[in-house]
């Protein structure tokens, strides 16, 4: 098991290096000379030379990349041009907000998607199945931010049940925090719930055709026991790994959800940074999501092995 984890970690290293190269190259895409912009109106040649030296722009690009990579590895993602705060600090500040949102969305997605998928599979080709499929298709096709806007209109503006925006840290005021987060988390969860439903359905349909299910039925177990005990245990395996994989998508989806509900998280950070031309922050956020995504990939793989006795034997 440990060798397996170690091997997977080693494989992640080249991937991370390529991502870091891409993130570094992003700043080379910038039109115009950033130093000229920084130097301001006067374009003082002394200042420009000094800035060039400070940002190591006189060195060959390869060296610039290596210096930058060295800083990143030491946890220094640069400084925000706008707030002068270290980017790492900014990200660590905003991350808990987004993680709370993503975790709540994940819970919603699992609670909606998996039972719906099971019911659709067990009641295949009935009205219930068609309905579940239709809802899933809509969940995949609806633009998330628009769903958010519509929900705000209905729930906050017309019914006045929930606040339309705002954020309270969970540990400071759990109830209030849940109250403001419940709608954004639901919105964020919809495409995920749809995907989980579809995968659960097809996975369960595959499992329910297996011989051991027929055996279980033959020995007179109730349909409920057959589905819940025998079917589910195997049918859910691929779904669990999928959930871990989709967690990365949640981070991306959070960008829009946070924008709609004005939640001060990770996604709001990158969007604000984009408009303030605060490129170090943009790079930092991209790098962090990629790392988080790779971690989730790793967890998905490990979960799969842990939950699947057949795989465990091969290790």
């Amino acid at each position, binding site marked *: 098991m440990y060798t397996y984890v170690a091997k997977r970690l080693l494989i992640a290293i*080249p*991937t*991370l290096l*390529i*991502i870091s190269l*891409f*993130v570094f190259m*992003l*700043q080379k*895409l*910038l*039109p115009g000379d950033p130093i000229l912009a920084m130097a301001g109106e006067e374009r003082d040649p002394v200042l420009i030379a000094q800035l060039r030296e400070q940002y190591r722009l006189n060195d060959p690009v390869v060296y610039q990349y290596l210096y930058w990579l060295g800083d990143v590895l030491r946890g220094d993602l640069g400084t925000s041009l706008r707030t002068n705060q270290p980017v790492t600090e900014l990200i660590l500040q905003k991350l808990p907000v987004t993680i709370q949102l993503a975790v709540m969305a994940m819970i919603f997605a699992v609670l909606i998607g998996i039972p719906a998928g099971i019911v659709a599979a067990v009641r295949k080709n009935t009205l219930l199945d068609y309905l579940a499929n239709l809802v899933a*298709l*809509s969940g*995949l*096709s*609806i*633009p*998330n*931010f*628009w*769903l958010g*806007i*519509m929900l*705000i*209109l209905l729930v906050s*503006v017309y019914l006045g049940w929930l606040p*339309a925006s705002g954020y309270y840290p969970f540990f400071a005021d759990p109830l209030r925090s849940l109250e403001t987060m419940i709608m954004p988390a639901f919105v964020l969860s919809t495409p995920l719930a749809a995907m989980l439903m579809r995968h659960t359905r097809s996975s369960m349909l595959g499992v329910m055709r297996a011989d051991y299910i027929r055996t279980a039925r033959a020995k007179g177990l109730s349909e409920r026991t057959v589905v819940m005990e025998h079917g589910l245990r195997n049918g859910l395996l691929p779904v669990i790994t999928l959930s871990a994989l989709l967690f*990365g*998508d949640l*981070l*991306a*989806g959070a*960008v*829009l959800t946070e*924008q*709609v509900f004005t939640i001060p998280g990770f996604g709001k950070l*990158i*969007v604000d940074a*984009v*408009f303030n031309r605060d*490129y170090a922050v*943009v*790079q930092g*956020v*991209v790098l962090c*999501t*990629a790392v988080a*995504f*790779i971690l989730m*990939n790793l967890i998905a793989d490990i979960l799969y092995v842990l939950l699947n006795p057949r795989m465990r034997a091969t290790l």
Partner: protein
Amino acid sequence: MTILAHAAIAPAPEETPGRRAWRKFKANRAALAGLCIIVFFALLALAAPLLPILDPNATSWSVIRQPPSAAHWLGTDEIGRDLLSRLIWGSQASLAAGIVSVAIAVVIGVPIGLVSGYFGGWIDMLISRVTEAFLAMPFLITAIALAAFLGPSLSNAMIAIGLSAMPIFVRLTRGQVLAVKTEDYVEGARSIGLGNLMILKRYIAPNVFPPILVQATLTVATAIIAEASLSFLGLGQQPPDPSWGSMLNVAKNFMSQAPWMAIWPGAAIFLVVIGFNLVGDGLGDALDPREP
């Protein structure tokens, strides 16, 4: 008995794969409905200059934020522009973005995947690693970062979405080539001395094509949502030109005063995306050789 057995194995009148797929596709009502939605919006986008609608960018201070009425069927926006005409013109931006960005992804991604899968070796190793790295970044985040660094405009948004979607096609094509490469007929072609290019063109490409078509259709749906998302964030279509995403960006600020501003563009995106998803799913079923 002999006659019956004979009849059973007698080949049916030759049906080309394309015809077979179309026959299956036609029988799928959901897919046909999707096709109708796409055709409707495509016609709308193409006919926008010909339709008797108001100028989408003409402002009028006397009809600011009017609810739907006889003069303005879908109402007006915050500076008195006609929402129906902006919605119709906006369909051009959305459909173009969906199709152009997927075209970029396919035109760059498929050849890379072909080379990677067919030739193998260190080049495959390199391409696979880079593809994996790009797949490790969430699609939308990559697109936002690229659009941010390229500068906000509709064409840059298309490039950003296309490049972000490209790795999916590289991986799909590569996997498909690997599956076909070891088939007997490819070996046979090689044994009679056909060159690599000829084998790729005649034997590999036709087998790679169907899954790519399915993926491309489904990716158009994703790309349309991505364009709307970028425009919603202000990184896509720039004012005053209309796009559904940027209309929602403005509408968000007038939710309680003018909710109709937010309803139509989102509903339009929803419909078009459902259309492409239905057709994509339908094509997937129709092109699946395992099903009759």
